[in-house]
């Protein structure tokens, strides 16, 4: 199956990005072959709607699970509707996250774990 891990860097040694919608990058991995690709998150710097845009990006990659630190309500709704399983509270390196996922120690979440705009930094964003 294909999984997505929010990542700060471009390889498996990089740290998991604690934010989903405003993660810098995503590692998309095929858990059977261990082959992976890294995609930049075009939504990371958007003024608003980063969560939904990032979710669309990930859905277009046909992943079945998302591993991240925290996820907001809009991205959660999109991924959940698309039938993607969401794992939050994930930290450490991308490789460690994959190992935990494959080892079955991660628990999927049923609700969002952050408020809208929580990952923007520099205070709550407005300007809309």
């Amino acid at each position, binding site marked *: 199956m294909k999984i997505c891990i929010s990542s700060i860097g471009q390889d498996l040694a990089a740290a998991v990005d604690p934010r989903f919608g405003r993660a810098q990058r995503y590692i998309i991995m095929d858990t059977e072959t261990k082959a992976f690709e890294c995609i930049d998150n075009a939504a990371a710097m958007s003024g*608003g*709607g980063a*969560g*939904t*845009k990032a*979710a669309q990006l990930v859905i277009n990659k046909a992943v079945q699970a998302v591993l991240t630190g925290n996820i907001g309500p809009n991205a959660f*709704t*999109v991924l959940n*509707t698309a039938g993607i399983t969401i794992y939050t509270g994930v930290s450490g390196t991308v490789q460690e996250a994959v190992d935990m996922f494959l080892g079955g120690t991660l628990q999927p979440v049923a609700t969002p774990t952050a408020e809208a705009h929580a990952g923007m930094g520099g205070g709550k964003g407005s300007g*809309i």
Partner: protein
Amino acid sequence: MIIAVASGKGGTGKTTVAVSLALSLDGVQFADCDVEEPNAAIFLRPVIDEKIPVTMLVPEVDETKCSGCGKCAELCAFNALVVLEKKVLIFPHMCHACGGCMRICPEQAITEKPREVGIIEKGMAGGMSFMQGILNVGDPMATPIINRLRKQLDPSKIVILDSPPGTSCPVIETVRESDYCILVTEPTPFGLHDLQLAIATVRELHVPFGVIINCAGIGDDAVETYCREENVPLLMKIPWDRRIAEGYSRGEAVVTVQSDLEQQFKNLYATIKTTVNATA
């Protein structure tokens, strides 16, 4: 004549100034544009006789017509639509009502439906014409309500706009196309910092402006030094005075508490009028 009262920093005395200026003049139309928490009514005590709902047009998708091509989601600058294989998810709170998704849809599967974001209340406060916008709690779309308020202004009157704080879209919507902007600050480092942001914003909008220092006597003289160096007119100083604060806590305007300030507000308007006429 449209005069906007703005600030940068919140809580510096925008409403204090706007209300007292309005009470010192005749033929005023007052509009509270701080739609997230309008509070001028506490001081002006208007009798409201009209309530107008404010709506925005947001998309609705007919899924029997949708082919799932994703063009609407691609176009949306605010990421308010997400296209899944067999379903379009719409996030109405993120929609800015541009109508682009409806126009780009090749299947004509998208129509628009109104979404209420708040109301406008109109009435009279004594001889003063009064309006305020009230944004629904939890809704982020302040700007459309301010836009609707602005469409109901009567420029033949002295229009006084009580602006939201900050420098973002709701402030721009309030201040732009005004004849003059009063920037209210307090003489503190925080006040000065946000005043500088507000000045940069108002300059960008090409609206003539001047500064009022509220709570004069606290803090330092850095705001005055800054205004002098930047050639920004310092219009007035409202003193740091316990009686004003006590009046405020009872919902009484500054000019009600200290009637000698009324003449200063009248002079303020005369100064603004001269500036506006010289600019025009």
